[in-house]
């Protein structure tokens, strides 16, 4: 809004300069006057079309133009008339002071105002006015002009900062509201999930209860039926456990992040073919995409263990390390001698390669340690993303 207002002011000032140049009639150096009007028109047009950000080069150019206008006014207006009649420069240099104030605050506005004030003095000298022998009224006029520039720049700087601050407050309040809404949505989702799971747990319990009594009454129990009951109970236990682990209590989820521990724990609970323990040094909040990729990599590693290792158990361990994260998947299986090149030649490395690919996509590395008879350890190391650490 502020910058649109300044643009409008520029165009009005430019129009005023043109009107003045055409009506004054008695301008000295008409060519210089025409060239100056052209430069101001081009600059204003560019600012309007390109809407450049107020970088230092843009600000410097604008201030230079304001200074030049004050000087040219002195050169093109009839000698000794600058103080009495409206400036050839019009209000245009004020736009520079105001722009500096808007972009760089009170300090910027005041500095630009002082520079423009100094160029006023230069303009007077160029107009052939002998300041040393001038009347006090002329000098006061000059000081007043300088003060106008400084006040305009400083005041706009103040307003701009106030606007920025309230915009920041508004943004923070909005973010807060969005977060609160997200929390509420998560809670609602959790509740509906809890209801579903409670329902199925109750059903399973009722069935275990009923079938248990029937089996007990029937005398000797076929093992298959007991195993069926146990599997049903285990399934419900897994569902309940993953619900509990979905979100660690008391810890709010950082925006866009997920807990690696929670993801690994649900993965381990869902693994039916192998007992898997999960250890983590904390919740390990990472960007949600990282958690997804790492969990997928660990799932593949576990699949590999189930298929090839002949292990009785596996352990997944995740820890923070220099802001990054290290995940280890270890099994107590038969192990093998890991030689990437040989395995590659024998075409046996498909899965390991896919795990490696996932980790490398995150800028990480994979290392495999294994010896025949001593199990296998797969280490996935992913560095912290710089932009994640910076805020």
């Amino acid at each position, binding site marked *: 809004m502020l910058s649109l207002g300044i643009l409008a002011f520029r165009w009005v000032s430019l129009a005023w300069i043109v009107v003045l140049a055409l009506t004054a009639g008695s301008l000295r150096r008409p060519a210089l006057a025409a060239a100056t009007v052209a430069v101001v028109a081009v600059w204003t047009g560019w600012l309007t079309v390109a809407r450049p950000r107020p970088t230092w080069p843009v600000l410097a150019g604008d201030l230079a133009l304001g200074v030049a206008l004050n000087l040219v006014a002195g050169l093109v207006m009839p000698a000794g008339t600058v103080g009495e009649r409206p400036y050839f420069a019009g209000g245009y240099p004020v736009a520079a002071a105001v722009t500096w104030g808007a972009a760089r605050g009170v300090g910027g506005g005041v500095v630009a105002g002082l520079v423009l004030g100094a160029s006023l003095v230069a303009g007077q000298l160029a107009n052939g006015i002998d300041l040393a022998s001038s009347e006090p009224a002329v000098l006061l006029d000059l000081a007043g002009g300088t003060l106008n520039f400084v006040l305009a720049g400083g005041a706009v700087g103040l307003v701009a900062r106030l606007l920025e601050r309230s915009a920041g407050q508004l943004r923070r309040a909005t973010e807060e509201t969005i977060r609160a809404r997200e929390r509420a949505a998560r809670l609602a989702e959790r509740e509906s999930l809890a209801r579903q799971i409670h329902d199925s747990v109750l059903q399973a319990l009722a069935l275990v209860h009923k079938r248990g009594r029937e089996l007990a009454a029937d005398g000797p129990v076929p093992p298959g039926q007991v195993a069926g009951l146990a599997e049903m109970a285990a399934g419900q236990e897994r569902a309940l456990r993953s619900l509990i*682990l979905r979100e660690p209590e*008391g810890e709010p989820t950082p925006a866009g992040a997920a807990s690696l521990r929670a993801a690994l724990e649900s993965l381990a609970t869902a693994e039916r073919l192998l007992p898997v323990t999960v*250890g983590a*040094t*904390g919740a390990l909040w990472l960007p949600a995409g990282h958690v997804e990729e790492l969990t997928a990599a660990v799932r593949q590693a576990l699949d590999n263990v189930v298929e090839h290792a002949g292990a009785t158990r596996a*352990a997944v*361990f995740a*820890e923070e390390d220099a802001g990054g994260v290290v995940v280890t998947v*270890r099994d107590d299986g038969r192990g093998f001698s890991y030689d990437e090149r040989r395995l590659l030649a024998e075409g046996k490395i498909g899965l390991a390669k896919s795990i490696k690919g996932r980790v490398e996509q995150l800028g990480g590395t994979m290392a495999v340690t294994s010896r025949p008879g001593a199990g296998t*350890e797969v280490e996935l190391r992913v560095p912290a993303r710089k932009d994640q650490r910076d805020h």
Partner: protein
Amino acid sequence: MVVDDHPVWRDGVRTDLEASGRVEVVAEAADGGEAIERAREAMPELVLMDLNLPTVPGVEAIRRIVEESPHVKVLVLSASAEEADVLEAVKVGASGYLLKSATAAELVDAVVRVRAGEPAFSPSLAALVLGEFRRMSGTSEPGLTARETEVLRLVAKGYTYKEIADQLFLSTKTVQNHVQNILTKLQLSRRYELMRYAIRRGLDRT
């Protein structure tokens, strides 16, 4: 002694333990307050307890039981791995922690080992403890030595004490000592915490 508020679960645990022929259940309790009383009367070698208990919470019951009879070992058997609770239980004197989904054989094994003075660190507990020490590093808390950290990390990766001993060229007994020292440091850190708290309160009052 078995402490749990679900009678069916208590029965199941008692059956599992006694069927092994290596453990005798001398008492049962259904809540925290009862656990403190029964432990005083029955003088068990080991208390196997849930953390989620009525009347007195599990962690507080453990603290009181260990305070009254320091030789009693406590093994936590809990349904959910609530990080804060488990760490707090270990800090007040529990020697180990087991998930309720552990098999009967694992349960008996852990009970026998803890009774013999061997801390039962599950991989997940080892990871939690490692994280706790990492958070405490930089404070005045007693930290872990490089060797202790190494041992703890291997436990977290699921290695048995025997496997760790082989890998680090140590005796199994030395590895156990390291784990015991880690536990002692963790319990010490809580005492420091309490002391600092007391000092702060005392200073505030003057």
